[in-house]
């Protein structure tokens, strides 16, 4: 099975490289791209079925080989655990959506476009599959390049400005992340006397001194927070989305933003648990501000794409809140929210693209009564909208309620404030539906759902329904990995506590860990006050 993972990860890159030089027509290019993304999706799905949920904490299908000549400690190490598992099929599925949503809209330079999409797919899959920190960072930065060109070449009128802003802003952040990662590797070397770049080894066995944790945390945070994007580092996002071609928006919102939240779970939480706890009031404030502010901004937009872009900021705020709640429900909800937001928002951008293909406008006021012209497309759009606003039975509800439960346990007020986002979300999304889909018809006749549009949206809607109806399928493999992360965090926190309170000599047992970490912030969120009561 390890080979399947290796092939799935690199197949798009190889195919993309071949496509870039092969003398193919536009229609052949898009068929080739569809075949490659579909094959990748099948391979990834096989991995999901082969994954052993009970062993979700341990990386499975691991590949481990040297690849830099002369540097044996830097490895080509791949593998999936419960945290990264579902992000793989999400990426593979959304790449299919990206190819299909460009089916007619990309006319010029199709060869270059599709090869960039394929190259980007490898970058995204690689980030989630990487078990080596060097490999991770290479993939992490590498994703910027194809997307930069996709926005900069096939984008709208302000594509150059958008592409440069997106590139510089995210690069600036991730340079700081690199410093944080380098520090970690060096710290490990000092503690254990060997060099390792293995992510599982680093996150479990690096003890970052408490006095350095906040700095390392902030360094990691800088890059991840801009990617998410956490309020107020979000302003590159609406611009990039509005200017990007549909496929770019689908992958940007659907997958690229998740690199940030994935980084939080993968690195920030286990490496700097004490700082993560100390930072909770700040992070929660930013997350809740993002939820409310993103929703309010979305409400005031007239451009559908901008509206969906701001709604992303709101939904990703939920995700961050859940992750930093530091308990099982919050983290599980946060990880599931990554998948759910990717599905719903990715599909939503695809739908905006489908409307744009027909009517060449993204302004809400130009639309009206499209449901009578495009009944099938609008049914799918309504399913996606309801998935986005957290309707039970669809995926968004499960992750949002888990996040709220988890966050409420940690800090009641922030969860309660975040819950207002659910009301605001319903308001602006249903207003959008009311103005664009319903009411008197204001748009000319157009062909309803075409085959490639159905092929893009129906699978996404089906997965949304599956997650909503039976979330246990998706949560089961996650939980061991989350418990593992919380255990790692707790062993460090309790080590710190036992140091600072050595005269009392009380160390919590690991069995209490899951609950106690959550209870750290109960009440007013002041960690210091609670620590003294342990």
């Amino acid at each position, binding site marked *: 099975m390890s080979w399947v993972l290796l092939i799935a990860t690199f197949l798009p890159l190889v195919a993309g490289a071949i496509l870039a030089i092969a003398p193919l027509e536009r229609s052949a290019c898009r068929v080739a791209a569809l075949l490659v993304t579909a094959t990748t999706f099948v391979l990834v799905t096989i991995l999901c079925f082969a994954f052993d949920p009970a062993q979700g904490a341990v990386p499975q299908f691991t590949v481990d080989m040297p690849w830099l000549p002369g540097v044996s400690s830097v490895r080509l190490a791949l593998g999936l655990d419960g945290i990264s598992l579902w992000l793989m099929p999400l990426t593979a599925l959304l790449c299919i959506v990206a190819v299909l949503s460009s089916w007619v809209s990309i006319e010029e330079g199709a060869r270059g476009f599709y090869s960039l999409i394929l190259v980007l797919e490898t970058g995204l899959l690689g980030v989630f599959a990487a078990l080596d920190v060097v490999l991770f960072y290479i993939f992490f930065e590498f994703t910027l390049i194809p997307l930069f060109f996709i926005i900069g070449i096939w984008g709208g009128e302000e594509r150059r400005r958008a592409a440069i802003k997106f590139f*510089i802003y995210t*690069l600036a952040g991730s340079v700081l992340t690199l410093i944080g990662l380098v520090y970690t590797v060096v710290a490990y070397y000092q503690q254990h006397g060997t060099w390792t770049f293995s992510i599982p080894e680093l996150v479990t066995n690096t003890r970052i001194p408490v006095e350095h944790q906040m700095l390392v945390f902030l360094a990691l945070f800088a890059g991840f927070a801009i990617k998410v994007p956490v309020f107020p580092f979000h302003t590159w996002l609406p611009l990039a989305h509005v200017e990007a071609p549909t496929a770019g928006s689908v992958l940007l919102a659907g997958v690229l933003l998740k690199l940030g939240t994935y980084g939080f779970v993968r690195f920030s939480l286990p490496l700097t648990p004490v700082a993560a706890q100390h930072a909770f009031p700040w992070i929660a404030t930013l997350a809740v501000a993002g939820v409310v502010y993103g929703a309010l901004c979305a409400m005031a937009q007239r451009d559908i794409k901008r509206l969906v872009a701001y709604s992303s900021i709101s939904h990703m705020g939920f995700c961050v809140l859940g992750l930093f709640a530091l308990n099982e429900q919050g983290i599980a909800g946060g990880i599931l929210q990554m998948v759910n937001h990717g599905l719903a928002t990715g599909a939503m951008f695809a739908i905006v693209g489908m409307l744009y293909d027909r009517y060449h406008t993204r302004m809400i006021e130009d639309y009206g009564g499209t449901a009578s012209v495009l009944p099938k497309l609008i049914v799918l759009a309504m399913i996606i909208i309801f998935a986005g606003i957290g309707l039970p039975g669809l995926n968004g509800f499960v992750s949002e309620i*888990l996040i709220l439960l988890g966050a409420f346990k940690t800090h009641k007020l922030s969860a309660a404030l975040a819950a207002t986002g659910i009301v605001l979300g319903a308001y602006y999304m249903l207003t959008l539906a009311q103005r664009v889909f319903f*009411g008197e018809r204001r748009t000319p006749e157009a062909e309803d759902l075409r085959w490639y549009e159905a092929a893009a949206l129906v699978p996404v809607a089906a997965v949304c329904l599956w997650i909503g109806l039976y979330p246990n399928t998706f949560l089961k493999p996650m939980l061991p990995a989350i418990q593992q992360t919380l255990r790692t965090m707790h062993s460090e926190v309790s080590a710190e506590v036992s140091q600072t309170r050595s005269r009392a000599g009380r160390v919590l047992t690991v069995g209490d860990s899951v609950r106690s970490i959550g209870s750290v912030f109960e009440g007013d969120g002041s960690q210091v006050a609670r620590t003294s009561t342990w």
Partner: protein
Amino acid sequence: MLDSLVNLVWLVPLASFLAAALTWACGRWLGRMVWIPCLAASAFGALWSLLVLIRVASSAPAAVLVDVFSWLQVGELDVTVRLLVDPLSSLMLFMVTFVGSLIVLFSVWYMAEERGYARFFAEVALFLGAMSSLVLVANVLLLYVFWELVGLCSYLLIGFYFTRPSAAAAAKKAFVVNRVGDFGFAIGLLLLWTLTGTLHYDQLLGGDSPAINSLTPPWITLIGLLLFCGAVGKSAQFPLHVWLPDAMEGPTPVSALIHAATMVTAGVYMVARFFPLYQASALATGTVLAIGAFTAFLAAAIAVTQTDLKRILAYSTISQLAYMFMGLGTGQIVGAVAAIFHVFTHAFFKALLFLGSGSVMHATHGELNIWKMGGLRRFLPVTHWTFLCGALALAGIPLFSGFWSKDAILAAVWEAEHGGLLVRVALILGLVTAFLTAFYTARAYFLVFWGEPRDEEVAEQVRHYAEDGHPGEGQQHGPAEPLTMQVPLIALAAGAVLLGLILALGTGGLVPFLGHSFGYAEAGEHGHHPLLLVVLSSLLALAGFAAAYPMYATASELPARLAALFRPLYVASSQKFWIDEIWLYIAVRPMLAVAAACRVLDTLVVDGLVNLVASIPAVLARVFLRPMHSGALQFYAIGMLLGLAVIVILVVLRAS
């Protein structure tokens, strides 16, 4: 055999869900027969739940818990789909499926001309599945799940005629207003879970030490009030009642099923379900009573001057639901039982009135203004007689079913008189509302069915319709009142006439049955009906009905003169006390203004700061490194790598 009836009760919602899926998937293939799955599922549900109800009623007081499957399991959060069959849920289940199947039968005829016939039955079947699940599930989170799902069906069916802008707006309004209430519900749920660690009814309310007993009084009050927010939204109580009158944009059978008989009673059901929790907090029950009494009066006062038949019925629904909350707000078991009794009788007579007005609408070709109707009893005899039964029941005329249940509520309030000023005011408002209810019901009835047609065009439509069963021009469409619409009307009319009598007297009242609902304490003294109160409320109802006769049964100057005499009151009532406008100006407009401000803030300030920071290197470069400033991208990239290298070297050196 009998126990497997109860253990397999999940078949009832499942059948409806399957019917919804089947209708949606095979709608085109089924053609005009697309109603079959929905009707079959609801009839099956009605039969099954009747058997379950009989089983529950005949056995020793017991609640049966049925685990179906584990839905969501994360750490100590355990959401198992567990069903609770007890007197309360089995009665609600029977009501939903029985009234539901009659309304579905009526819709087969009523909706036959509509585009989207299949969509209608798919959505109604989905609603019936969600509503039966709502009353059965034994977990607060799952209650919330189905609570939202019935809201979805309400949204979809209000917006059934989605090309009408008013319908699209009403659908959104209903969903969003409900979400405002559900915000409170959600916080209450979170609080309940965080404080007790469980969301299962059996652990919260049942057993030797129910988890709610471990809560301190302030928390109990807070949770009760938060959950009640959800009920206020769903059951359209002041100040969140504004969505229900607009919801009348939906097809009339939907108004009957969702916005009168079943979904809107979910709030009452919820408070009854958590009644032990409410009983533990005088503040929570007092709030329920106050909101109930005020809403009952307010909605009745609005209904008196409305001219749209369906909106009159909508306000009367708000008012009647408020009566139910008054019963719950007494904090007495007898009050809660009376509330559920009223839920049950109201479902029959209000569904009947809505279906009757649907028949009227068909005859008048969609006209709803009662001042344009008149004399319809000659053309629609079955509709007329059944509507009269419903009107008498709603008005609370003695012996009709509404009389018994409303009287039981007022009696419970009367008995709770020692509660002080609030209870006394509530009782007075309840009695005034009884008079107003009878008055506006009679007003609508007389204007529609008595006298002479007031509008030539409508009269022409009706005549045409009575002759060939089809409004206006068009081909023959059978009789005006075919059997498929008569059967539901007559069955519901029988309920409206007899149900109260049977349930109030036949088996010694409902208290011995419903009083043993899950988690309820011993009821103690069964409710008396104080004679003075019975006489008083009967007289008020009769007076209200009688007062409308001279004003509306014949052409009269009296209504206009009265309106002129009490002009400010009349305007306030006909403008619905401007509550919609108040919401617009204190909530919607400010929110949109803040949103617009955020939009500007985002581009000017937040992004402006980013651009400012980003321009610093460029400015520096221009000043100091002008030759190097050739192209932005390369410069930044190189600069960053160089800077990075320096930092890394420093960090490594310092660390070692």
